[in-house]
């Protein structure tokens, strides 16, 4: 105890020197806080810019210009007993004629028919098939205008630019203007964007196929990677002996996270499609490939979360005679759940936005109807975006942004559930 005499009075924290030092420490503290806040603000601002630019380019896709046509379903053209195979092309031609009653030049009518969407026949056929009673009646119907005119209405194609720099010439525009003057043109909410399947015509193209496809693929991905990821993580963290082998496994899993996603696509192609003979383009295969990607993420994050549970909790449970499995199920997992959910959120978010591997297994197909199950051909939202982003038609520019917004909406709903759970389950100990 001889040493203790060395010190006589405590150094005063109230001294100037200490105060000065403390000011510096506080400054450091404030700097840290400031940097933290700045980092968050930067990140959120960038997200804001990103979303802002998407909304700016995409909002136009949420509305669509429609034209009101008068349709007469001539029983000559459409057989009441077999409405599916009627001559709807002629019905539409007739409607266009009604649209321009005074026109008799076939060239003008031809131009006029181009105002109405190409899909008008299909719309009509679906209506009549759904309700054969329409045969023989005349009614008015709002159908989308074709893309160039939609762009004209939205001001993307400018009327005052020189004619040779326009997608529509003066004659076409004036024809369209006659319709506008007669009040037949109206801009409405574009529900087709959500409820239609894909089409090569922007005015008809919708995301329902992609949404359903993404949903199935993610469902499969979640059902595989969530339980498997947690199970693998638990095994590696809690049960596996700590030795060279488990080190190898750990490195291996970390490494899988760095494998470019397209390589998983290659693997999926080789194993699931070529070896197991599963169908191409199926959400089942897509989900399985995506789960290969999310699996490492979930495993790594779950392991970190398990590691963070203090040993005293485990000891306490073991001490009252809980088996290792019970300790994990009853105590460790519940405490690790917030972390696990974070991993799942991020992993699935990544899977939702992933394009490259889906290209290889054919989930970028052009499909005009949504898939009926996980074995049927489907697309996914990111691949749909990828396809639309590469389409020449002007209408797809806005629709691409809109599709991205829809994807983000999908993402946010998906995350909201997990985040809600996470907030409920989080606790400090």
């Amino acid at each position: 105890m001889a040493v203790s005499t060395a010190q006589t009075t405590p150094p005063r924290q109230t001294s100037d020197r200490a105060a000065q030092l403390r000011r510096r420490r506080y400054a450091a503290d404030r700097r840290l806080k400031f940097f933290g806040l700045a980092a968050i603000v930067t990140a959120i601002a960038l997200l804001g810019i990103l979303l802002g630019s998407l909304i700016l380019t995409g909002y136009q896709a949420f509305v669509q210009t429609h034209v009101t046509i008068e349709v007469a379903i001539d029983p000559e053209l459409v057989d009441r007993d077999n409405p599916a195979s009627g001559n709807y092309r002629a019905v539409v031609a007739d409607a266009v004629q009604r649209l321009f009653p005074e026109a008799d030049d076939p060239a003008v009518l031809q131009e006029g028919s181009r105002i109405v969407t190409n899909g008008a026949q299909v719309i009509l056929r679906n209506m009549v098939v759904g309700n054969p009673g329409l045969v023989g009646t005349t009614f008015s119907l709002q159908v989308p205008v074709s893309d160039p005119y939609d762009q004209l209405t939205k001001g993307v194609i400018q009327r005052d630019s020189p004619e040779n720099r326009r997608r529509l010439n003066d004659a076409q525009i004036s024809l369209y203007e006659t319709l506008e003057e007669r009040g037949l043109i109206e801009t409405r909410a574009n529900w087709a964007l959500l409820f239609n399947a894909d089409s090569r015509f922007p005015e008809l193209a919708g995301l329902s196929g992609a949404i359903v496809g993404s949903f199935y693929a993610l469902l499969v991905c979640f059902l595989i990677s969530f339980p498997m990821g947690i199970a693998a993580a638990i095994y590696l963290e809690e049960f596996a002996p700590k030795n060279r082998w488990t080190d190898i496994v750990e490195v291996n899993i970390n490494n899988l996270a760095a494998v470019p996603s397209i390589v998983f696509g290659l693997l999926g192609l080789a194993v699931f499609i070529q070896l197991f003979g599963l169908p191409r383009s199926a959400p089942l295969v897509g989900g399985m490939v995506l789960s290969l990607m999310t699996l490492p993420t979930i495993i790594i994050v779950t392991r970190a979360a398990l590691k963070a549970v203090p040993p005293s909790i485990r000891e306490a449970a073991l001490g009252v005679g809980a088996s290792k499995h019970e300790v994990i199920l009853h105590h460790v997992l519940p405490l690790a759940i917030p972390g696990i959910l974070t991993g799942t959120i991020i992993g699935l978010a990544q899977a939702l936005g992933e394009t490259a591997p889906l290209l290889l297994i054919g989930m970028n197909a052009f499909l005009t109807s949504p898939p009926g199950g996980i074995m049927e051909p489907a697309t996914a939202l990111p691949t749909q975006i990828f396809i639309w982003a590469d389409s020449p038609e002007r209408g797809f520019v806005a629709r691409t942004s809109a599709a991205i917004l829809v994807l983000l909406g999908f993402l946010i709903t998906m995350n909201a559930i997990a985040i809600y759970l996470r907030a409920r389950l989080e606790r400090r100990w």
Partner: protein
Amino acid sequence: AARDQIRIVGSSTVFPYTQAVVEEFTNMGNAAPVLESTGTGGGMRIFCGGVGVDHPDITGASRPMTQGEYENCVANGVDNVTEVLVGYDGLSIAHSVSGPDLDLTEAQIFQALAAQVEVDGEIVPNPYQNWSEIDPSFPDSPIVVFGPPPTSGTRDAFVELVMHDGCKAFPAIDALEGDARRDVCDRMRTDGPFIEAGENDNLIVQRLQADSNALGIFGYSFLYENQDTLKAVAVNGIEPNEQTIGEGTYPVARPLFFYIKNAHRGVIPGLQEFAEEYVSENSFGPNGYLHERGLITLSDADRETTRATVAEGRHFDRHTN
């Protein structure tokens, strides 16, 4: 598993055209075909994987099938294939409307984009950084050209159609033979002015809109859709438009194909009908919907030949081609 719909794979360039046919075909009340864009090479690989319901029926190609691919096909039992030429795709060189009008010869394009050029009879690494260095009448702005990567069929077509012609204009290069000549004529520069911009043509379009000095190389349909912001560069004095491309006076256009697996005809429901729809007048004719999408139609005679090929299911043999 049994399959009742057609499966189509292949080139992303043919994709929009096939897409249109698929949509029409479906609207006619047929089972909807499944169409994927895999790239020509990827498509060939899957297509040639074998005969049977697990393998696609049709593949689109922005270039003819190679010898190696043909052999692979035959090795896998896909020995009866029909090659169908559907039309041409124009490649446009374009830039922002706010830029000056440009009229380039193929030789000048070569000078701007090749890795090596001839200067004073010597073959040297491309020294040109500014357009005005190539021709004083050109604007004094840096050469910036966005173009397709070497893995793309578009790039190949561009090299063959423009660069090869361009290099003929230079005696020292023209005098070269074989590999040495290829080395000079085929290689695009990688020192900056030529920027390989990926397969997304819309992206190039948007970058051109943002940068009035830049030129881009991409499919004609993108130029057509963006006439208000982009304008074409005339090649050898000819601007690309439907007429010049269709007549073949515009020098930069390439053929598009699709291949049908004949063994699947009569087994896969609708395959024959689909192929016939593809080559119907309503589709790839001069007023057909493919033309609306930007396909440059074949001449009347060629269309007849194509239709006959499809109807007969004419066996195509790579060796004889």
